[in-house]
Each structure stands twice: as C-alpha cells, then as structure tokens.
C-alpha cells in the first residue's frame, strides 16, 4: 500500500499512544467514511435515470 506521512500536535500524539490507537486504521476508516458519503451524494438526476432506463430497455434488460 502507498505510505503517507501525517503530522500531529504533541497532545494528540500522546493521546494516540496512551489509548493504543492504530493510527493507520483510524485514518483509513475516517477517509473511507468520507469518500462513501461523497459517493452517495453523487445521485443521478431524474433525467439521467430516465436515460439509463431507456438504454436498458433498448438492450432488453427491462423486459419482465
């Protein structure tokens, strides 16, 4: 995995040590949450959804 360096003020660095926090995992989880919340905001417009439905119908995927 690619490595990134982060800097922490001393009090937070102490907090991390005292609480035995796995910093890599913590940052990964927070970033994942953030990226997923951004993804869910990327909603399709009604017009786009309609266009996709029409394309799916053309391909035969909407036949039931």
């Amino acid at each position, binding site marked *: 995995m690619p490595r990134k360096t982060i800097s922490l003020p001393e009090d937070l660095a102490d907090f991390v040590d005292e609480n035995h926090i796995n910093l890599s995992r913590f940052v990964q989880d927070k970033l994942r949450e953030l990226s997923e919340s951004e993804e869910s905001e990327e909603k399709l417009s009604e017009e786009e959804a309609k266009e996709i*439905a029409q394309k799916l119908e053309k391909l035969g995927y909407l036949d039931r």
Partner: protein
Amino acid sequence: MIKPHRDELPNFDRLMEECEYQTTTVEETPKSAPLWTSIFTGLRQDEHGHMDFVVDDELQKREDIDGTFVWEKLDDVDSKVLQVPSVIPPINYNTEYEAEGFGVSSDLDELEADRKKLIEKSKEVLEDDPEFFAVVFMQLDRVSHFYWNDKELILEWYKKMDEVLGELLEYYDFDSDEPLIVLSDHGFAEFGEGRVQTLPEETPHGTLEGDHHEDAVLITKNIDFDIDQPEDVAKAILDNYGKDYPVHENSR
C-alpha cells in the same frame, strides 16, 4: 468465436497457450447483474438476491446489494476496480471513471469511444502497480445484443477485445507467479440456443439478435483454486490474499 479464430486473435491465442483455459457452464441465470455480483462477492444468486439492474422501477445501487465485494474485504490491499456492472452506472473502487452512455450504450461509435477511454484509464491505473486490479469491458456484450447474426462485425469486436488484452497484458509478467484471471460472465448465442431465455427478441425500440448463453470463458494463471461457478472467482481472489470466503450451506 474465439477457438475458430485463434489465428486472428493473437492475445487470446497466447492466453490459451500459456494459461489454463476452460469453458464454465453457469448453473444459475446467465444475466450480467447477478453474475458479476456473484463473481465479485462469492455469493450465489439465491444468497445475494440481486437479479436485475432495475427493481420496482428503481435503478439499483451498490447499497441495494446484500453482500460484500472482494475489494471491500481486501482492506489492507491496494485495490483498484473499474466498471463492474452489477449496477448501472457500473461500480468503480478507489478510482474514478465515467463510462460513455453510462455503460449501457448501444451506439457503436459510443461503445468504441468508451472502449478506448477505458483502455487508457486502465493503463493509467496499472502504471501505479496496484496489488489487486479488476476491470470489466462490456462493449462486446452490448454489440452482441444487436448484431449477433452479423458475424463479421462480431469478429471485428472480438478483435477489439483482443487488442484490449494486448494493451493490458503489457503490465503482466507471464514469467511471474502473479495470479491472473480473464473471464466473461456469460456467452452469447442465437435465441433458443441457451438453457434459458434471458432477453426478449423484441423491445419497444426494435429487434435483438442474440441472447445470453450459459457457457462462459475462463482463463487463469497461477490460481490454485478450483473455479467451477461464478462465485468461485471471488473465493479464489480472497483465498489468494489469505482471507476467509463465503461457504455455502449446501456446498457442492
């Protein structure tokens, strides 16, 4: 189409020569949404229950699928995924790509533009040497829906897929022990040739020429796992990384 035209498909030919080649016969419904979901979750169709792109007039989204995709389990692996068509628009992971025509185009020029764009995006991702990479090129399927009886055109698109393989296999070392899987989710055939009909012959927009077939292509190298059904692909991937994979109640 591949076997009789091996001399015109040099990259397929190389894979068949240097890798394990087999035809897998899908036991469940040969439709793309459930198949790609099984391929990348390790769950059978009756387990993930995701059978269509649209349910009750609602376009399905990733969060509507009850299952964990392999890249979501590989949390300590640098994974990059492009265009898995379990849903429309298709799923990307750790990278961005916007397909021409939302990945469901039926326009030949648009499909060709998307194929070229996806090759370039795949190469850009592969330049960073991710530990796990998956990409799905759907263009041949779309062309087959409309032009299956035009074997000249179909062969032309197989050649285009062969070119895709050539471009991407530049990043694969055939002498390494790196795992490689090349597969289709299903095959194609004339209506009536498959075990079950999955597409209508007529749509409100015109006639379709082909239907999905249960026989799919599977080519593997350095995969020490028996792949018999689509869900076994995810298990093989997870097993390769030492991860647990789904075990079914009525395992075959």
